[in-house]
Each structure stands twice: as C-alpha cells, then as structure tokens.
C-alpha cells in the first residue's frame, strides 16, 4: 500500500485543475499585458481566474494580486507596508518560517518586532496581542491555521483589536482553505495554490482597497503596479479552478486515525488543542521515538507523513512550533504530523495505523530513552 498523509506540505493537483491548465499551457501563449488579440485572450483567462479567487475570498477582483506563492505573498505584505525607518511589527511564535524569517529580516534592517508567545494549547491569546501593540505598531501578522499542529487562530478577534488601534492586520491563510470558513476580516491575506489542490508556483496576496502597499520587486506595471513580472496565466487559471472546488473537509478520518493510535499506542499524546483544530491534522508525539526515524520507517512501508520542519539539507530540526508550546527538544523530536486530504480512504487510515503501531513498537525497543 502507498498512501499520502502529508497534505499540509502539499496537495495533489485536482484533475479539473489540470484539465483547465493544459489548454492554457498548450495553446494560450500570449502575454496578458499585450494589446493584441493573443494578449487579450490570455488577459481574459487571467481576469476570469482573478474573479474566481476573489469570490472564494469573498472580496473584489481588484483586491487580488497574483504572486509566485505564499512565501512571496507574505514578503510583499510585510515589506510592502513599511512606512518609517523604525516600524513595529507583531507576530507570533508559531508562524511559518515564511513570516518568521521575514520579520527577522525586518529586525535586521532596523525595524522592531514583537513575537507573541503561545501556551501549550497552541492558540494565540487575543489579550497577548493587544498588550504587544505600541503607538509605532504598523502591522500584526497572524496565521489562520497552524501548519504543524492545525490549531485555528482567533483571526477576526485580533483583526478587531487591530482595527480599533489603527494597526494593519495580515493573515497567512495558506492552511485555511477547506479547514475553516474564508471569512477573514483582514487588510492583507496570503494564499498558496498548491495547498488547495492547485498548482505550485502561484499564490495570492489579497490587498484590501485603501491599504497602502508598495511593491517589493521592480519592473513593469503588472498587477495594478503591485507585483511586476509577466503574469503566470496557466498558474492563475489553475488556482482559480482550485478555489472553486474547495469543499470543507470532515474530521471523521482524522478522528478514526487519532483515536486508534491513542488507544493502541502507550505514551502517545496530541500536540496542541485538540478541539480548536483543523479537521485534517493530527500532530502526535510518541515518547521515546525519534520522529525522524518514524517518518523514514513509515516511508519505507509506503506511508508519507512528516516531522518537524525540513532544513536546507532535508534533515529535520526540532519544530519551533512545538518548542513554542513548551515542549522539550526531546519531546519535540518525537512528534509526527499526519495531515489528511479529500482522497484519503478508510483502508489507507487503517493501514497507516498498523504501520505506526508496528514501527513505534520496534523503535521503542531500540530506544535507550524509553525503558
């Protein structure tokens, strides 16, 4: 058996998305910014895709800026709102590196950053964010759904705090589609194509009308002068179709997996708040087991799961999210993330359970830390 349980890393491209993209790749080569018919044909597809994304985000098409992905969208959002030489940014300890490393760079060039901690539940406290605000605060960046443990963050409550304080709010909503309702009341919002059964290499920054955003890369006047570069029409078309096909995931398969593992494996715990959680994620730690070894053992049995965050070489570093939750490095290293998708079946889940039970048993026998 071969089965994929790593949908928070990336998702398979939906057949309908491929179907929509192939004719564009093969036949519509015009530059969407050209005046002639070839260009107009491409432009029409691009704008149609933009309207689809806008409808998914419950916003207007002119607020949708296509980017190369979630990381670029985050960079554009945070760097794009810079105003003075010493702006203050607030974000949280459990953000994705595509936000944390951006604020690290902002700090390096002289701006101020407050990283709000979280408790063991992995959910950011609204009051902690409120207390972090300063007169110089320019923007608060908060993810909608944590990519590693799946916890759902109080985005709209914090957006309200920001609005009252006159502070901009950005939401990295890359992990939100299909997990929570896309009704975020924020100024800036990032989306990624490949996390919602769309193609890689395309994403979106939604920029609310009136938010002053300066471009970060320089070139032509594409995307209403906010993101230069010849438009990736096929990618945008794919993302547009993928947005239309998003359906809410149900938690039943995840619950089946989790209750089976919690029931059959001793010293196994859920990381993060089990209730306020996306329905497709289960992040578990197995005492005395190296998560990395478990990932390899499961892969050799045909099951794709993940552990921690991959570093540049492809090996695993202890997750900064689990460390932020208060776990020791050792405990953080014993964690595995299962993230399910629409195509997973009961048979796959049951096969995975058997493989995990067997592998954990074997790895614990070898573990000096687990006696």
């Amino acid at each position, binding site marked *: 058996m071969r089965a994929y349980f790593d949908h928070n890393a990336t998702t398979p491209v939906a057949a309908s998305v491929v179907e929509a993209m192939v004719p564009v790749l093969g036949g519509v080569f015009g530059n969407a910014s050209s005046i002639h018919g070839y260009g107009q044909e491409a432009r029409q597809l691009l704008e149609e895709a933009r309207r689809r994304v806008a409808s998914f985000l419950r916003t207007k098409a002119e607020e949708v800026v296509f980017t190369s992905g979630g990381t670029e969208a985050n960079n554009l959002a945070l760097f794009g709102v810079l105003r003075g030489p010493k702006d203050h940014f607030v974000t949280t300890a459990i953000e994705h590196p595509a936000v944390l490393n951006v604020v690290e760079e902002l700090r390096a060039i002289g701006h101020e950053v407050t990283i709000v901690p979280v408790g063991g539940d992995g959910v950011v406290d609204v009051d902690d964010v409120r207390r972090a605000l300063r007169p110089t605060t320019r923007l608060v960046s908060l993810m909608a759904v944590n990519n590693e443990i799946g916890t759902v963050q109080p985005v709209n409550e914090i957006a309200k705090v920001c609005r009252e304080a006159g502070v901009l709010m950005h939401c990295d909503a890359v992990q939100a589609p299909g997990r929570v309702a896309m009704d975020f009341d924020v100024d800036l919002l990032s989306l990624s194509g490949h996390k919602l059964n769309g193609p890689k290499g395309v994403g979106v920054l939604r920029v609310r009308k009136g938010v002053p955003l300066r471009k970060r890369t320089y070139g032509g006047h594409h995307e209403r002068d906010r993101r230069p570069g010849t438009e990736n029409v096929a990618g945008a078309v794919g993302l547009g179709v993928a947005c239309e096909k998003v359906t809410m995931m149900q938690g039943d398969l995840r619950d089946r997996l989790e209750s089976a593992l919690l029931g059959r494996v001793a010293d196994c715990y859920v990381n993060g708040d089990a209730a306020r959680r996306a329905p497709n994620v289960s992040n578990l730690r197995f005492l005395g087991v190296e998560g990395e070894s478990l990932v*390899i053992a499961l*892969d050799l049995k045909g099951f794709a799961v993940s552990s921690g965050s991959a*570093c*540049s070489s492809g*090996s695993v570093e202890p997750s900064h999210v689990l460390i932020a939750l208060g776990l020791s490095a050792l405990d953080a290293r014993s964690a595995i993330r299962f993230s399910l998708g629409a195509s997973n079946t009961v048979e796959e889940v049951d096969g995975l359970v058997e493989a995990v039970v067997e592998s954990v048993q074997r790895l614990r026998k070898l573990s000096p830390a687990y006696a």
Partner: protein
Amino acid sequence: MPENSKIAVAMSGGVDSSVVAGMMARGDAPVVGLTMQLWNQRRLPEIANEGATGGRCCSLDDVYDARYVAQLLKIPYYVVNLEDRFEKHVVKPFVEDYIAGKTPIPCTLCNNFIKFEHFLEMADGIGAEKIATGHYARIRFDEPSGRWQLLRSVDASKDQTYFLWGLTQEQLSRTLFPLGGMVKTDVRQLAMDLGLPVAEKPDSQEICFVPNGDYAAFIEAYFKEQGITTDVTSGDIVDRDGKKLGKHEGVHHFTVGQRRGLNVAVGEPLYVIETNPATRQVTVGSGDALMKKQFRVGEVNWISLASPTESVRAEVRIRNRHQPAWATIRPVGLTEAEVEFDVPQRAVTPGQGAVFYQGDVVAGGGWIEREA
C-alpha cells in the same frame, strides 16, 4: 525476502561511500541510503571556508551529491539530523581535550559514538540488519577464536584502521566495508563504470568540521559562540627546568612534537614536550626529550583477542602517520594497559589513539593518557 536483510549505506556524497552504495545496489538485498547531518553550516561563520577545497562536512553540496547518487541508483535516500549527538560526543570532547592539554582525534569518537553506534540504531529502526560504509578496512570472522576481526585495508595508503579500533564485536558483526579489498584507483574506476557523478571528487580532508585543519581557529570561534573568553588558556612557555622562555596565546595552539609557532629562540631547535592545562604551561625541549619508551593507555578495546590478562606483543601505532613499532602491552585491569616500546618513539601524544597490530590484524587499541 525478510525485511531484515536490508542494508543501510552511510552516504557522505564522496566517491568512496557513493561507490559502496553502487556496489550494494547491484546486490540482491534492498538498500537504503542515509546521510548523517552532523554539523550546522550556519554555525561559526567566521571560519567559513569558501576556498577551492571548500571541504567542510555536511555541506549542502555533499548532501546534493549523495541524493543525486541515490537517485541514479534508484535507492530510497534520507538525511538524518544527528547534530545534537555529534556536538555532545565529538565536538565538545574535541574542544575539551585540547583545553585539557591533549591532542584529540574526533574521527575515532565519531566512529565509536555516531557511525557505528547511532547509525546502527537507525539501521535497526528501518529494519536493516547490516550497515555498509566507505571505510578502508577489512572485517572477517575468525573461526578458531570465534571472534570478528578488523584488518588493515589492501590499499595501505588509505588504511583507516587507526580510527576504527573502538569497534565492538557486535558492531563488527553487522558492518560491511566493501572497499577494504580495493585500491583507491580501482574505486574511482568503479565510480566511472557505475556512472556516478562523483568519480572525480577530491578526497575529503582531515577533520571534517575544521576547515583547513586550523584547530586553533575552530576552537576560538567555538569559544566565542559559547561566550567563553580565550585568555583562559594562555600562559608561559617554559623549558624542562621550569625556566620561563616566553608567553603563548593558549594551550590549544600546541601539540606534542610541534616546532612551529613557539616564538622562542635559544640556539637549538625546540619542540613541545608537554602542555599542562593546570598551570597553562607549555614545556619545550630538544628533540631528544621527545623520545619515549613507555606510556599508559585507557579505555582499551580488544578486538581479535578476548581481554588478555598476560602481556601481548604487537606493533603499536601512536598516530595516523606513525610507522608501527614493536612493543609489549601489559594489561592493567580490564580497561587499561601499559605499553612499552622496544625502541623509544618520538612524540607520544596524550589524546591520540594507540592501535595494536599483529600483522594486518588489529588486536585492539586505546587512548594515550596523560602522565599522572
């Protein structure tokens, strides 16, 4: 085929371990390639090595090479993060040994604690009974004694047994050294024949995490990272009568037998005889004073012999490039021994290994200790 007939190959991205992976992939047993990520390249940027030899361990280029080789061979491949273990068992002891007036060999520690201990556990974890590495050494089972033996490699110039004396019977029984019977030129030829893109990669340099072999620079950068000031090891250079001849910047700059960098002139060539961490003194003397007949070894590991109680005759090598010399080894208790050379040898250096050879067979080895 039972799952435990799997073989885990330690792949560094170099030509040797790539050829091993290729040889194993040609066999019947399923093969899994693993690269050990031992050192975080972002650390100690001040000693970063951009030069042509660029050879720092675990560089991204090496990992990419290893992964490419695994893809060509169509074997599953993973990078495993052992940075914490490497720090604890290799890097820290390396620095501490230098500060303690010794000249350590991290490769032996790495073999003992990482490559042949933790790597074997990883192999267990993926259901691999055997591991294979690119070391130049041979292993065989000796029926009469019932023991696994470690032997010098056929290519004498590449022999790595000096670094492998710590292997236990269990470790030897599960390890394959497919290159032990080959010479390096044949290994490179085989890499070509297998179509491996690393066939012409230069050999790796001495200590993998120390660029250009500059130990002192590494230790100082490490101190800085850990917030330790370097003057804790500076002191006087003295002669054998205790007379002060000059000052030095830290005991970690010196190793027994060293002549360069002393900056004292007294007419005759002077060598480091001893470094004393307690007094922070570096004692120097003439070449004659370096000659030594007898010394003590600790943490002795017997390989071809089961812990002898009587004296053993063997040729003893006291550093990697040392020509082994005949000696009598008297076991002291279970883990120590007294080594007495027939003819005094130059620069017996605490912290280095002493390896006992009987012909090509490694009888055992131990760590050279400081004199009490």
